[in-house]
């Protein structure tokens, strides 16, 4: 796969279709790949990488990159194409300046899941027939591939590319995923249990803003939490209320626009399952206002900027009963 991508990128650079390539760059280890822009064939040859750990969603970078001189080639996984499409719809990316090559998605691996197995000092990871062979400082370890699959890939919603100029590999289909299972499980808990669950999770938050800054739906020029005039700007959560506030408002602000790419949970240094908040909104929207997948197209109206005169009343929340 990586070779095919490098080959095609070099061709497109050579024939002048594009002047830059957006992809991932090798790091110190097998897993620390960094999104990067490549300008020459030599750079591609030397540093370009696409492996089991190239998880980062490149779509958000294209906001800035598509405003630069010339055209850029971007390799997008299926989930990334949804983000890309959503950004197109919001007029954040200049489509003419991006050449999209769809590449097959994951499942990608999450190093934290490997480390959570107690495997440390990792030097290399190889996938041999869905068994990971892991070279470490302390000898070779093995573990099943699927136990190391990252959270965002385990709940994959679609292997279909919703936008591309060309494809490398086959296009897939929208999957019948079980991504709402955890949301449902929480919904079935008592209010107190849910409260305890979220307090436990959100109290880990260090307000590093990684979830916000990586989110392809969070593209405000000046975030309300950075704006002193908003009256709610905060640098750190000085009280548990501010932890709740930040995550509720952030999830609400991307509701209807969140494509469920899972980047927020991936980057969280404290492993807070932030995607559950977004999925709750998606699930509610689907069940109350009809199935909707943000980023699936560039024309439909976002459910929160739309309405139906027959919409349900907010009292349906209260009809769930009093506890």
């Amino acid at each position: 796969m990586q070779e095919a991508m490098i080959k095609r990128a070099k061709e497109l650079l050579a024939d002048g279709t594009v002047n830059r390539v957006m992809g991932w760059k090798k790091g110190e280890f097998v897993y620390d790949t960094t999104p990067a822009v490549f300008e020459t064939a030599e750079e591609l040859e030397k540093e370009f990488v696409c492996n089991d750990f190239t998880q980062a969603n490149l779509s958000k970078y294209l906001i800035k990159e598509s405003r630069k001189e010339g055209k850029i080639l971007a390799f997008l996984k299926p989930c990334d194409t949804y983000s890309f499409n959503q950004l197109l719809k919001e007029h954040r990316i200049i489509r003419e300046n991006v050449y999209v090559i769809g590449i097959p998605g994951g499942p990608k691996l999450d190093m934290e899941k490997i480390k959570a197995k107690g495997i440390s000092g990792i030097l290399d990871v190889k996938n041999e027939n869905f068994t990971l062979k892991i070279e470490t400082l302390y000898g070779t370890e093995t573990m099943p591939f699927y136990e190391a699959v990252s959270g965002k890939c385990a709940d994959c919603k679609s292997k279909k590319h919703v936008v591309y100029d060309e494809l490398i590999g086959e296009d897939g289909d929208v999957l019948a995923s079980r991504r709402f299972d955890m949301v449902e499980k929480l919904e079935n808990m008592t209010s107190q249990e849910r409260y305890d669950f979220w307090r436990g999770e959100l109290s880990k938050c260090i307000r590093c803003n990684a979830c916000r800054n990586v989110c392809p739906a969070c593209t405000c020029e000046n975030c309300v939490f950075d704006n002193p005039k908003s009256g709610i700007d905060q640098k750190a959560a000085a009280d548990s209320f501010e932890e709740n506030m930040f995550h509720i408002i952030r999830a609400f602000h991307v509701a209807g626009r969140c494509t469920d790419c899972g980047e927020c949970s991936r980057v969280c240094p404290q492993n807070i399952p932030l995607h559950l908040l977004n999925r709750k909104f998606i699930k509610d929207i689907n069940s109350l206002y009809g199935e909707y997948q943000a980023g699936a197209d560039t024309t439909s109206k976002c459910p929160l900027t739309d309405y139906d005169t027959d919409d349900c009343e907010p009292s349906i929340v209260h009809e769930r009963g009093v506890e």
Partner: protein
Amino acid sequence: MQVNENFEPVIVAFCCNWCSYAGADLSGTNRLNYPTNVKIIRVPCSCRVNPIFILRAFQRGADGVIICGCHPGDCHYTSGNYFTRRRITLLYSMLDFLGIERNRTRLEWVSAAEGAKFAAVMNQFTEDVRKLGPNRRLEDLRCRKQ
């Protein structure tokens, strides 16, 4: 659940200028009683109520938040309250998801002619919140009155 009968909840009511705010007025001129716990904040349309407002009300000591707007179809700005309805439904559902007691939040449609309804809604809501006791799950400890 232990109910403290002496607990006086703080209720924040966001009222649309064109209907429920006038409805509150009407209930007053008709000498209908509604609890003094209710603090009314007038907004140009129920649609003006940003989710941040609701959370801020809880942060600064509200035990319950109610939004009152024009009946669907009657919005002064044609469609504002339809947007409110979607937005607030999702927000309340999210607060519920985070374990905030459902009965601390409410939305009611009250027209300018429904003074009696306004008083009844406020009485009912205040009682519901009184039963829940003070807001502890979504408060800012720094703002708690000593």
